């Protein structure tokens, strides 16, 4: 893959659907970011997608994401110029020019942030990210697993508030300090993370996740239009496995330490009514249990989908009675190493479990 590709608006609509699925229950809805892209495309702006393989080793890549509370994002609507400013601020600070822009997180609304920034610069978006899904914290990325430098970071608030985290000793410190800034801004901030070289992206980035999200989105949209089974359509483009089909019979939600934690319980629709599956979440779906046994866990992607529409069901909105299908998608290889599991394996979320992949 060495070809640049101009993204069509259809591609971006599909990306929004696929990214919401890769959000594994979290990551925030991409709707408002998608509205930004529709308007930018209506103005004639187009965004190019660049394969990571094309990057030169000494190219600089901006890694962007919006940080904060989804609730605040519903009132302070995401604006493409704010994320673009975070990128410019980093260029000014480092005195370098970025070759391209990349997503921190392909899951949820952050999948579209690099496109929104790129629209203002005539720079391409790298077809890669650092999570392959959504995760709640700064150290839960492939670049953190790779022990790459966690600083500097730029944060921007649309009122002209700009702050740079110049240096921190670890990714966990970056999480603490940047979270504090974000809270002070009103619990929302546009950020440009530590710049990455082309070499780093090729070594530690998770490749082709934008393309993957677009393919998943197209599969779902086409199945919806033809009234085909959207779950089968997803599995025709991704080597996933169906874990369970059923309905939600209970949701228990609580907020602790700034996370939305809880458990959704599902039961079988027809025969075998006694068989139940419970899925624990911490913003995202983390561990699925069947009759007390762990059946799937992070870093495997656990996706809960509306059985009829095929679209993702989020941990903030899942409710009793919904017909859902739970599928697992394979994790990026970088997270299945010993070091990777330290960052995003079950123990990173407080479960005393040895990682066992659905795909083993």
């Amino acid at each position, binding site marked *: 893959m060495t070809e640049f590709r101009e993204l069509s608006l259809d591609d971006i609509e599909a990306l929004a659907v696929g990214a919401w699925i890769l959000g594994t229950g979290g990551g925030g809805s991409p709707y408002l970011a998608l509205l930004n892209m529709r308007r930018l495309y209506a103005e004639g702006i187009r965004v190019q997608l660049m394969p990571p393989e094309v990057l030169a080793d000494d190219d600089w890549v901006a890694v962007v994401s919006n940080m904060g509370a989804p609730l605040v994002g519903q009132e302070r609507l*995401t604006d493409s110029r704010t994320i673009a400013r975070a990128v410019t601020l980093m260029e000014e600070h480092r005195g370098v020019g970025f070759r391209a822009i990349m997503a921190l997180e392909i899951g949820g609304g952050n999948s579209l942030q690099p496109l929104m920034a790129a629209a203002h610069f005539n720079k391409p978006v790298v077809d890669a990210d650092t999570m392959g899904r959504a995760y709640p914290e700064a150290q839960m990325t492939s670049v953190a697993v790779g022990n790459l430098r966690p600083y500097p970071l730029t944060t921007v608030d649309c*009122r002209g508030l700009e702050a740079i985290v110049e240096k921190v000793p670890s990714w966990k410190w970056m999480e603490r300090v940047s979270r504090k800034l974000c809270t002070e801004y009103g619990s929302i901030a546009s950020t440009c993370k530590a710049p990455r070289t082309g070499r780093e992206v090729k070594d530690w980035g998770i490749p082709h996740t934008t393309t993957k999200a677009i393919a998943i989105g197209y599969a779902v949209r086409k199945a919806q239009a033809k009234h085909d089974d959207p779950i089968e359509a997803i599995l025709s483009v991704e080597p996933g496995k169906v874990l369970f089909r059923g309905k939600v019979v209970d949701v228990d939600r609580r907020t602790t330490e*700034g996370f*939305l934690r809880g458990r959704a319980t599902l039961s079988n629709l027809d025969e075998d009514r006694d068989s139940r599956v419970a899925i624990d979440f911490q913003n995202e779906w983390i561990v699925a249990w069947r009759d007390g046994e762990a059946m799937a866990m992070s870093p495997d992607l656990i996706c809960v989908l509306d059985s009829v529409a095929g679209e993702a069901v989020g941990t903030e909105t899942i409710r*009793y*009675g919904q017909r859902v299908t739970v599928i697992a998608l394979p994790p990026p290889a970088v997270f299945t190493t010993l070091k990777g599991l330290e960052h995003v394996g079950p123990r990173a979320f407080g479960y005393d479990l040895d990682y066992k992949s659905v795909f083993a």
Partner: protein
Amino acid sequence: MRRIGIDVGGTNTDAVLIENGQVVGAVKAPTTSDVTGGILDALSRLLATGAVANKPVDAVMIGTTHFVNAVVQRRGLIKVGAIRIGMPASASLPPLCDWPADLAKVVQGPIAMVEGGHDYDGRPFMPLDIKAIQRAARDMSAQSIRSIAISAIFSPLDPSHEQAAAAVIAEEMPQVAITCSSDLGRIGLLERENAALLNAALAELARHTIAGFERAIAESGLSAPVYITQNDGTVAEAVQAQRLPIYSFASGATNSMRGAAYLSGISNAIVIDVGGTTTDIGQIRNGFPREANSVVKIGGVRTLFRMPDLLSIGLGGGSHVSLDPLSVGPLSVGYRLTADALAFGGPQLTASDVGIAVGSLKIGDHSKVTHLNRNTCHRVLDHVRGMIEESLDHMKTEAGDVTLLAVGGGAFLVSQELDGVREVVRVAHGDCANAVGAAIAQVSGEVDQVFQNMTREQAISAAKRLAFDRATTAGADSATLSVIDTEDIPIAYLPGNARRVRVRCVGDIAAR
């Protein structure tokens, strides 16, 4: 208390008189295109029954789908000036940015985006730019704008910037109609603003229609005050309803649910209203419909405000039935049932024909459907039962069997034995449930905001006090107030044990 309830539906205008809790008169008249004519007709029929006699009536409550139909059909709407307070945030997504083009063309007037608004914790986001609002008002005045919608970020938490802007505009443009998004509630700027814009677009239709209602009541010789029923099963005084017409968008379905609950004496149940083409399913809790917590699209516009949580499926008495492969609905013969259905000599097999064949529905000519054998009929009815069972389960909020109230002309399709249902109750006077629901409506107060640095109990009781204040301001008798709905959601990411609390209370209309 003697009250008249009127339901202005798409086909019929129903009127009932309720005296000391009993239905003492019920009539139907055809709905007219001006709405008022149908009400006059229904009232004169009701007076002709002698039920009203010469005794005074305390109140007339009217439920109407007129305003939501106007949005869906894009008629009677005016251009709206939009003022968004919250710059420099959200600038790339201006008001009406996600509207269908045809509706935006009718409604979109000048747009002004100015600095101001609040943060989630009540801190001002930016100082309010009063001068910019004055400039916007002059510009809109020059363009002869007659209705303005104002939205500000986090206005459900702190409405003061919207209110200050409204005061400035009222000074510059004394005749203009003003809608503040904070009057419509919910967090979600775009959806709340959309609701405010729709409401503003209805300003003149609401003024004419409600003046027409009052004229019709006066012309019929009644001297009672007029109330308009709302989405949540409560009422607003005519002057208030005229200001917020979108609050009556779903009052037809709500009145039907509440009427069914009232007539059956059951206040916690799922209600199924089976019509000719569609079936509406909702849930009644403490006699009031459960609200939708998510975005509701109206005429293609995403909105978020007080609406009942309803599930509509394409199933009704007129639903087309195909036998191979077996399917029922969503196509329907609709109001042409008595011409197109088999039992009336028509060509189309409908759900009603199956009901007639098995004897559960006594209309039409039974001999025209005797060719439908028992097995076939039961296959169809089993299929319908499956459709209903699945929909009921969707509407439940927790496991366990429920009581089901069945109303509407197609209620014969609701089997007596349903999975997940404890008991199916068929309601007497079920065909006038909507008008009864209108007649029994009460006054409400609601709060939906984020509380911080409080225990859960403190937050809920603070919300309750605010809700009581609002209900009293809206005309409730404070001695009769009670909380009907409390919901609290912890908010991820926000510090200070932040919790969004929603409390709704109702009370009887205070004596004048």
